[in-house]
């Protein structure tokens, strides 16, 4: 779904929650007259289950879209090997192969990206512009952070992930 220039994606979990409560509301309103009298509140409430994730995704996507040109200017192209905990806060550009993809269904994808010098975790706190799959060659723009904010190994907080070469089908 496109709102303005932002391509909004709703996670499958949000849709599943919406569908579950819709069915629940339908069933209970059929059997329970008291629920039917509350439908004027319950139906808007039900739609909020979809509207809120859409709004949040729109806000985060537009925020990331604003950050992308800034990161484009600031980022230094580095090998993954050079990224270490002393670089926390630095904006980097990394190119590599996607080895693993996790949590894409939550709109919070986490990738393991490797180049010839090593591998690193890349976290994204919103849905990416493109559907990135394992074996895609990608360019990542992001900031080096610690995995658990104050502790943990360095990871990249990704602002943009772009496919350079698609994985063979």
């Amino acid at each position, binding site marked *: 779904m496109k709102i303005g220039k932002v391509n909004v994606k709703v996670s499958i979990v949000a849709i599943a929650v919406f569908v579950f409560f819709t069915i629940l509301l339908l069933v209970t309103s059929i059997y329970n007259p008291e629920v039917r009298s509350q439908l004027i509140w319950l139906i808007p409430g039900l739609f909020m289950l979809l509207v809120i994730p859409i709004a949040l995704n729109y806000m985060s996507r537009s925020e990331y879209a604003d950050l992308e040109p800034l990161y484009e200017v600031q980022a*230094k192209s580095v090998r993954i*090997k050079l990224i*270490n905990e002393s670089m926390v806060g*630095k904006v980097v550009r990394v190119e590599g192969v996607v080895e693993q993809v996790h949590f894409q269904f939550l709109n919070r994808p986490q990738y393991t990206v490797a180049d010839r010098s090593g591998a690193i975790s890349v976290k994204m706190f919103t849905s990416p512009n493109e559907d990135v799959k394992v074996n895609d060659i990608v360019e990542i723009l992001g900031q080096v952070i610690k*995995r*658990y904010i104050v502790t943990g190994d360095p990871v990249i907080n990704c602002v943009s992930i772009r496919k350079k070469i698609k994985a063979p089908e």
Partner: protein
Amino acid sequence: MTIEDKPLHIDRKTERYLEIAIPVASFGATLIGILLWMLGFEINFQFFAVGCIIGSCLLTYLAWIRPKKDIVALSTPIYAIIFFVVPTEYSVGVTLQLLYSVSLTILLIRLKYRFGAPGTAAAMGKQLADSIKTYIEQTSSSFTGVRPDTAHDAAVVFVQFAHGEYREAARRAVAAAIGQMEDVGQAATIVRAFSIVKEHSILIDKSLPRPLTYEVFRPEEYGLLAKPQLPAYDDDHEFYAVLDNALLLLLSVAWTNSEDDRPHLLACQTFALKLLDE
């Protein structure tokens, strides 16, 4: 195990005792509770959850002393409090505590096999790791006599590069290479190392690709390098190996001749270990 490899927080024996203590404390307290109830002492069963809480705290400690942190193991005391703060009946309490003890044991196994060993002094940046120490010992005699200010420059360039401050590293490397005119056996090699780091720092800072020609060490200097220049290396590999060698050489110069900078170099040790890694 060498002195450099020793664990920072606890020795292996204590760690093993703590690992055993987790299931012993959590299952043990619950089993004592069951036994007392069977003997007719109907004490509030909530008290026997103390074993689970102790087990959680021990697990948290074991997770905390590892360089790679396990957020699940670290947060178990919070769950222990949430689960056991409310008084429960005997049957519910037994089930909850036994299930919790099983979970703690599974988390302990997960911690051991997925999150590595507790941090050693080297891994935590308190001591020099064996591999780096060996390289520095091999090369230190060649770099003895380097002026302290040159060694300090080498430390600053290394640290700035590790911190991703490439422009500053390049600037400092240029100044250091110009100033490095003393009559030391390996002065030319040190100057070359500064020049290589400068060249790479500028390329990274400006996000430029690998140039067709670039500065390299000479064959007679290979003995001073941490990583051998293998003939099997392709152009990219060779280009980056030159930088790794130059940075490690500056580390050796700095460590040997600038004691005041050692804490800063130790703080960047994980970076040096990555450079040394093939």
